[in-house]
């Protein structure tokens, strides 16, 4: 419904993350490794986007740039049209706290805190009172189906459960973006699917933009767009609809397909074409 009513200016507003010729060079002794060779990409609000590519293709590096976790050697990253490089430490912390939720391959729950405490930690950082945080935290745990295990420590939870807590934690301050780095990398097939489903649910219900770096094919059917990377550069950007033809039968994930067709896609095609021209 939003898609049909949007004007050109609103489209511009909907771009939540924009990178401009982002390069990253690591110095390994005397050798310079060009992890990113100038990436320009735009990510829309409410999009579910996967960055795919083999190991060493730079997808994690790009992912970290987009999530304001690392600084590019050159180029800019804009989150809500604000150049991340221009932010001071307080603004950066604010951004990480409220704008972005992070999910990691290794879950990275604080080991000494219970599930609920892990979920409420970002709220504490955001200045919520203990009671507010507790209520909201329980709501979130309920959403990920772990309300009854709120008092368990991470080591008392299975991998899938830990990742659910991590998702609840990422959602703590109602971010506009969730960054998930290989969220299914340490999980078995079924659990991985559950997590992908849960992320998709968040995406639909909360309209949160989801950006994942992954090489899990299961991710593809849930994604609106897939950014393929190779050797630190964009190889191609594909919409899921195109991809469904190729692997839809393998995945057999009908739900994602239905969901995607419900969305307005007119703007996306335009987006994609600009992306691809920028790449060349």
């Amino acid at each position, binding site marked *: 419904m939003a898609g049909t009513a949007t004007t050109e200016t609103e489209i511009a*507003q909907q771009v939540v993350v924009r990178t401009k010729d982002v390069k990253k060079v690591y110095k390994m002794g005397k050798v310079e490794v060009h992890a990113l060779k100038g990436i320009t990409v735009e990510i829309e*609000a409410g999009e579910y986007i996967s960055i795919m590519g083999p190991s060493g293709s730079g997808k994690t590096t790009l992912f970290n740039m987009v999530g304001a976790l690392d600084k590019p050697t050159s180029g800019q990253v804009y989150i809500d049209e604000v150049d991340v490089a221009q932010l001071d430490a*307080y603004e950066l912390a*604010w951004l*990480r706290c409220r704008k972005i939720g992070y999910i990691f391959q290794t879950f990275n*729950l*604080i080991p000494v805190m219970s599930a609920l405490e892990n979920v409420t*930690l970002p709220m504490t950082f955001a*200045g919520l009172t203990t009671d507010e945080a507790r209520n909201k935290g329980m709501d979130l745990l309920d959403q990920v189906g772990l309300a009854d295990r709120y008092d368990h420590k991470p080591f008392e939870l299975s991998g899938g459960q830990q990742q659910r807590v991590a998702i609840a934690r990422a959602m703590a301050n109602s971010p506009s973006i969730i960054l998930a780095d290989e969220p299914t990398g340490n999980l078995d097939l079924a659990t991985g699917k559950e997590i992908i489903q849960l992320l998709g649910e968040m995406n639909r219900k909360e*309209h949160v933009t989801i950006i994942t770096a992954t090489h899990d094919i299961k991710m593809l059917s849930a994604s609106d767009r897939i950014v393929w990377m190779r050797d630190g550069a964009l190889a191609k950007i594909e919409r899921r609809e195109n991809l469904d033809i190729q692997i839809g039968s393998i995945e057999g994930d009908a739900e994602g397909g239905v969901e995607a067709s419900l969305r307005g896609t007119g703007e996306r095609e335009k987006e994609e074409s600009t992306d691809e021209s920028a790449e060349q």
Partner: protein
Amino acid sequence: MQDDTTRRQQKIGKQIVLPLSKAFEIAWKGIKIRLWRSVITMSGIVLAIAFLMSVWTSSVFDRSLRSVEPSDELYGLVQDVLEAEAIASGRQRIQCAIVEQERAATSVEHVTPGMRIRHFLDGEEAFRSLPVPADADAIAETLEGENPPHVMLLAGFPDVVSVEPVPRLIGDFVRGGGLLVAYGAEGLQDRPAPEQMPLARLLPASPGSGSFSAEGADIEPGQEFAQVLWQNHPGAAFLETSGKPKARALASSGGRPLGWMWQVGDGTVAWYAVDASSAQDVDVISWLLRGQTTQAAGEKERETTGLLVRLIARAVGKKVETGDMRGTWLVTLSLLVCVVGISNAMLMSVTERFREIGTMKCLGALDMFVVKLFLIESSLQGVVGSVAGALIGFSLSFVRALFTFHVKDVQTGEGFWLSLRYFPAATLLGWVGVALGTGIVLSVIAAIYPAIRAARMEPVQAMRAEA
């Protein structure tokens, strides 16, 4: 969709600074749950501070109780007298008879005056020690035997010297040119007044005591010595010793004899009851020997006494110097161990949590918050660890001191725990304070660097630094 739009339009704000109480809350939770890890980290601090405290406690006890025990200076002095005798006599081998009251050794470390001098004599080429039981017959046998000793040592002032015929025999020995050295101040405070002292009976026909004044003195040629004693011990009562062969001086302070010296024939009877903690008493002995020099007629004697003074100066000077050097070295070393141990423990506990720090930063923690978290944690560990360490270190050294400084009265056999009797509470309390301060400051300082480094890292770097 509506609140989605408003959320996006939100301008970037500044992260709020959380109150210290929040950091404290989180740090405390961490310590409680990570109890074992915290205990291991703390054990580094505990060990370091325990080591430091034990060294300090030991040195406090050693320093404050050494003056109660027969001192090293006293033994040094006796050794110097013997060395001088050896040089003066020109003999190849000097036989030294040692008479010492049988006494129970109360601990392994407890060394009696006789044992100490024997140890010295046996280590020297010029001497031969000859232990004699504290028994009148044995002494008579030794002194009247075929091969009488040149030197007679009365270690720790045995009771037997007052039993006839020992006084007579010793008197003859001295008049015959033997050197009599009586020493050992232990327990002398509790001894009877000088008149009743057994050694006084060595002198023929002791006429009793009276007051002594510098004017009416018939004590020349030992006047100088008396004057020095008088100056250094204003409260001392001088006892008249007229009628004795060339008796020089006799003095006591608060019932405690300070020093006597007689010239008997060619021999010298010297008895030093030296309060070794007092530099003045050491002066008295030097004076005494210098006085001898001025009285001395022959070249040889002058040489001997001059040498003696030098030896005393050397012995006393050396003792003080080496004692301090060793103490300083030990304390420096233990401080170093302390610094390294604590730094290492804190460094470990921070670096192994880099990932956690990175995660916290992702969740919106400010750098300062992370640093605060670790400083609170390390200072809590520092406080607990230092208190425990100081207690352990003190206890260990105290137990050691308790047994080291346990002595038995020669006459009554009653034991004294000197460390309890002369417990240096104020000094020790001061050192406890220093140890606590050291532990806490060190653990905080050691945590600052890795905490700041971790906090400043980009979250990605911190999370990549795998512990």
